């Protein structure tokens, strides 16, 4: 009995499904080049970051969020095919099922991140090796709530509504979290800090001073991870019926 084999085939399936490449990989990279390349070395006011560094992390957060929530679209598809019920009558444990789903989400996210790092480096983003690693670490941790959100959405929503929901949710979160332009004061600034996506975008500060998140960041991400994981477990448990 080997649930790693299951994970391996899940990864294979994910990489063969080209429909998800556009939003997770293509879209963020294209936008990065459109926005950042004309003035990549210019500093954005109030941030201390160049256009290239700022939008590299912004669009990486966008692409990686899409990758993680994309898990939801795949789960919704499997539910519609009746496959989730087929898995439930196999010895595959809930834990192994979640692990496979989360790992495939992360695999897509890391591809998206790598593409943006390469694009950023080509436009002059230069960091010491340790800071690249620290930034990646924060993004990986910052994606935990979205890994849970993907599973939650997948078991809650049907295939028809999962696309618009994902697109809408990620767009709103991206806007409120300072992906497209810096939010440095006012209500949006105070409000944004309660969102997990805010801290994903804040991983860019590693480029400035090596410091990404303060305690508030860690607490916010941990709280959302706990809440959304509980939600995902609940959604999975109740979702035993025929779709």
């Amino acid at each position, binding site marked *: *009995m*080997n*649930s790693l*084999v*299951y994970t391996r*085939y899940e990864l*294979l*399936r*994910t990489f*063969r*499904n080209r429909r998800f490449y556009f939003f997770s990989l293509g879209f963020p990279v294209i936008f990065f080049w459109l926005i950042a390349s004309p003035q990549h070395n210019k500093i954005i006011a109030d941030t201390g970051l160049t256009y290239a560094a700022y939008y590299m992390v912004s669009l990486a957060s966008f692409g990686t969020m899409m990758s993680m929530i994309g898990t939801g679209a795949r789960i919704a*598809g*499997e539910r519609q*095919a*009746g*496959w989730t*019920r*087929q898995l*439930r*009558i*196999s*010895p*595959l*444990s809930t834990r192994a099922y979640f692990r496979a789903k989360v790992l495939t989400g992360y695999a897509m996210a890391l591809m998206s991140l790598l593409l943006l790092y390469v694009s950023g480096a080509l436009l002059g983003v230069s960091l010491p090796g340790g800071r690249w690693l620290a930034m990646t670490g924060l993004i990986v941790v910052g994606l935990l709530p979205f890994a849970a959100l993907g599973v939650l959405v997948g078991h809650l929503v049907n295939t028809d509504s999962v696309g618009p929901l994902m697109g809408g949710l990620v767009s709103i979160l991206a806007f409120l979290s300072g992906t497209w332009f810096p939010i440095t004061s006012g209500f949006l600034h105070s409000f944004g800090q309660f969102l997990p996506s805010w801290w994903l975008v804040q991983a860019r500060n590693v480029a400035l001073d090596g410091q990404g998140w303060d305690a508030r960041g860690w607490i916010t991400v941990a709280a959302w991870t706990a809440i959304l994981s509980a939600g995902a477990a609940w959604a999975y448990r109740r979702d*035993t019926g*025929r779709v």
Partner: protein
Amino acid sequence: MTVQAPAMTAGGIRLQGLVKTFGGQQGPIHAVRGIDLSIAAGETAALLGPNGAGKSTTIDMMLGLAKPDSGTVTVFGRPPRDAVNAGLTGAMLQTGSLIRDLSVRELVAMMAALYPDPMDVDEALEVTGLKDIAKQRTQKLSGGQTQRVRFAVAIVSNPELLVLDEPTVALDVEGRREFWTIMRGFAARGKTVLFATHYLEEADANADRAILMAHGRIVADGPTTEIKARVGLRTLRATLASVDPSILAALPGVVSADRHGDAVILSCSDSDQTVRALLDRFPQAKDIEIVGAGLEAAFLELTGEPDIDEPEALAT
């Protein structure tokens, strides 16, 4: 030849006092209203009934996909979930297609990897006739091919209990014939098989035993031949002028008699006795024809009766 049941399968399948009610828009739906059933290890049983009889709900409870409101299910002496986790159960559910972006072989191998004692993947592809399309992607298969892959997924786990919920719905005549041939081959390995169907001839041809369900209850249960004998009347037609039907109705083995012109139509519980008595007393009877009613008639007889529980169901 008898197959010695290994200790793992001791106890067979037992359903006791099983009840399941769903909330519906027009009040509760009593899907299953009290089922008691034992299936011995190694038996092939057919669960027969029209749509809405409660077959799929019963199967869901046997597989641990649904929790009974009351009553218990044990599969080889264990709760359904434990049997599933031990890899003892394999099933082909009524609805369902396949996940995409894998080849047939990859999909079957992926499922095989989840079980403690799976069948060899190539063997599973071989017996289900999927060898030639093993490299095809699952989203490019026909309906019949998809059903065969689903069947391969169910048996690659090498289960002791194989449950098939209306497995041939999407298949043509040839596909059905092939499917049952494969299924009987699998059952011959000493496996326990339960399949739900509303194709009566399938139960007749492929099961040792038929369990008839209607309105959430078991209305008959026995060897398929016995089920037919119980209510499976045969119809005897003959040309026999000027004999009163009431005299014919008194012949041995006759349940009812009818006349259309010179033709008499006798409904018989024992047509052998009837035909002997008929020729004995009325040697002029000719054009004698005896037609077996088959399971179809047995089925209508048993399940077509008015549902005496309906008013009670509406009242609650």
